[in-house]
């Protein structure tokens, strides 16, 4: 027992354990999201979806897929810029894992509560696009190149509204710490349901505009329909993923779904009150509450994918620069004024 305590006091041991936990949790959740997407999409499209793998309801389908991908030969095109080509998937996946470090599941269950939590999340999250650009550039394939450049253009267009939307929340909460932001929507809330001391999440006290902008930008950053132009399979074959196979493809694949989870988790923390739910003790039910809220957002993302077609790159740019950024700026202005007035 004392040995265990001594071990956990050691910084390096603690770091390894935390990182391991983050990676495992992330991969586990990603597999669940992949399965959920297969199943939900199937049912929305009058299909059954996975059925055989795993014996019942095809629950082992994502595992089977992952195993299949791992067996495939890891091909590197002859003309490709080999080191960049090889490292790109890791960059993409790593950034998602790094975001996950600051996601709070309960007041205590958080890998690292940074004071600059929001800033860190947004900064690290956009590194993933760098991996995409690297993949596109190094593949020696014109489709990949166009996909990579589209992803880069998308990043420039969408990072700004996303940051501005998050900034409004930071202004309202008065802190950049993820735990602090959750507290500002829970126990320390400024706005409560009248007559009680139950805090309201930001999305219900004026940040609905920021929430919508954030979710749109998140879809764009994740390259999901309706913003999946970087991989647009009917135009660019598979965009920046065209030349990838085997484990490197799996890493990109995993990064996409882990990214969905990470983005939903950040949105939940910023706008939906994170682990906090009236009447439930956060230190016991916190992780469950958090997961429920995250799942809701993931479901919405899947729903959007099943429903909508794809935009065109220039239309996305014009939507971002002409509507979302001014709207987000206006939202910050209003939030700041009200913050001072109230």
């Amino acid at each position: 027992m004392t040995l265990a305590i001594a071990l956990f006091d050691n910084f390096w041991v603690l770091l390894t354990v935390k990182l391991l936990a983050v990676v495992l949790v992330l991969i586990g959740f990603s597999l669940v999201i992949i399965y959920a997407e297969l199943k939900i999409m199937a049912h929305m499209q009058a299909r059954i979806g996975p059925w055989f793998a795993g014996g019942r309801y095809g629950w082992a389908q994502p595992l089977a897929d992952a195993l299949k991908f791992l067996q495939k030969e890891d091909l590197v095109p002859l003309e490709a810029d080999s080191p960049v080509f090889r490292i790109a998937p890791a960059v993409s996946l790593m950034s998602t894992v790094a975001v996950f470090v600051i996601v709070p599941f309960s007041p205590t269950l958080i890998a690292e509560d940074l004071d600059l939590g929001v800033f860190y999340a947004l900064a690290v999250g956009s590194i993933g696009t760098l991996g995409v650009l690297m993949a596109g550039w190094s593949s020696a394939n014109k489709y990949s190149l166009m996909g990579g450049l589209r992803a880069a253009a998308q990043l420039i267009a969408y990072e700004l509204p996303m940051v501005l939307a998050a900034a409004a929340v930071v202004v309202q909460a008065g802190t950049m710490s993820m735990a602090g932001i959750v507290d500002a929507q829970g126990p320390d809330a400024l706005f409560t349901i009248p007559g009680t001391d139950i805090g309201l999440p930001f999305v219900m006290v004026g940040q609905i505009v920021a929430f919508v902008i954030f979710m749109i930008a998140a879809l764009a950053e994740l390259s999901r329909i309706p913003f999946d132009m970087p991989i647009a399979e009917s135009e660019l074959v598979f965009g920046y993923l065209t030349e990838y196979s085997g484990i490197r493809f799996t890493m990109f694949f995993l990064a996409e779904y882990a990214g969905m989870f990470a983005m939903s988790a950040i949105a939940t923390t910023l706008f939906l009150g994170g682990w906090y739910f009236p009447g439930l003790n956060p230190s016991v039910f916190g992780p469950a509450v958090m997961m429920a809220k995250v799942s809701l957002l993931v479901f919405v993302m899947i729903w959007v994918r099943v429903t909508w077609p794809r935009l065109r790159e220039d239309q996305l740019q014009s939507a971002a620069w002409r509507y979302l950024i001014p709207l987000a700026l206006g939202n910050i202005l209003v939030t700041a004024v009200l913050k001072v007035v109230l």
Partner: protein
Amino acid sequence: MTGFDPTLAMHHSETQVSVELQTPDMTLNLGPQHPSTHGVLRLVAKVDGEKVEEIEPVIGYMHRGYEKLAEVRTYPQITALVNRIDWVSGFCNEIAFVTAAERLMGLEVPGRAQYIRLILTEMTRISSHLLFLSSYPLELGAATPMMLAVRDRERVLDLIEGVTGGRFHPNFNRLGGVKPAAGGGATQKKLAQDLPAGFLQDTRDAMVHVLGVCDEIDGLITGNEIFWERTRGVGVIPADKAMEFGVSGPNLRGSGVRFDLRKVEDYLPYGDFDWEVPAGTEGDCYDRYLVRMEEVRQSVSIVLQAIDKIPSGPLQAKVPRVIKVPTGEIYVRAENPKGEMGYHIVSQGGRVPYRVKIRSASYSNLSILPWLLKGALVPDIIAIMGSLDFVLGDVDR
């Protein structure tokens, strides 16, 4: 700037640091293996960023030389060839050919056979258009309409298979009539072959489902703002350009020309029914989509009227055992799902035609592509190509 152009933006920044940079256009080769070229079409596009400067379709990967083969096949054998031209509407391909040969021979086709031909033609049209309604949204990124449309297309194909024995290549028409593969069932052995038992009622049910799936796709896609953004004002074909290039069928009607060969030609008894010819106004991708959607509904209406009115009687006229077609020359055109399908037959009195010119719709519809795609964006290539709804077998013959 209408289209965003990352490479161009990059080049501007580089010239500012006074580096003279050669920026040659990139040649993008789409196909012959590409997810949305509907087969083995190859497009060699010169692109400047995402903008198409020049595009050249390369066809011929699917050329099977049917016009030459037709010169060494007897007339009944040719029907087996021609239904492979446009393989998603095989039945319709046979009609014009068989009609042309019958007119050369002076055969009178019995009414019931004509009605069966008409019903199956319209069901083939429904299945072809449902395939368009499934693949077009998919090319624009919406996967759900595909699942729904293909589900109900299957009902229609099953019915066609029930009558003809083939889902795509029925080879069902005979000179002088039709030859159903299915008899009336074991109990009716004595009765000659006819439509399978219960076909008419099953068809009514299937038509209800087809109308249902049209409404579902309408709800999902037709009013969707993103779909509008992608298709409205994109790929506009003016009516006079369309005619000059021989663009026909729904593509021509999308340009506002209310012209349907089923109304002006008499190869099948379409005059017996009450139906409308839909037409667009703008000539853009969206109008072509809407025209096809409406044509499905009109075809359903025709089928329902036809199965109510279908006469009884023989399925075949008397034909000689050895079919020799008298000397003559004829061109018969029919309204296929893709447009005008015609056969120009020159007969010299033998068992085989002297020359058969096959006029296929997709060939002419595709020939406008270099003109239409000049200046389009890469994503619009897919949107425009998809909206023309061609089949490579129909292009290459």
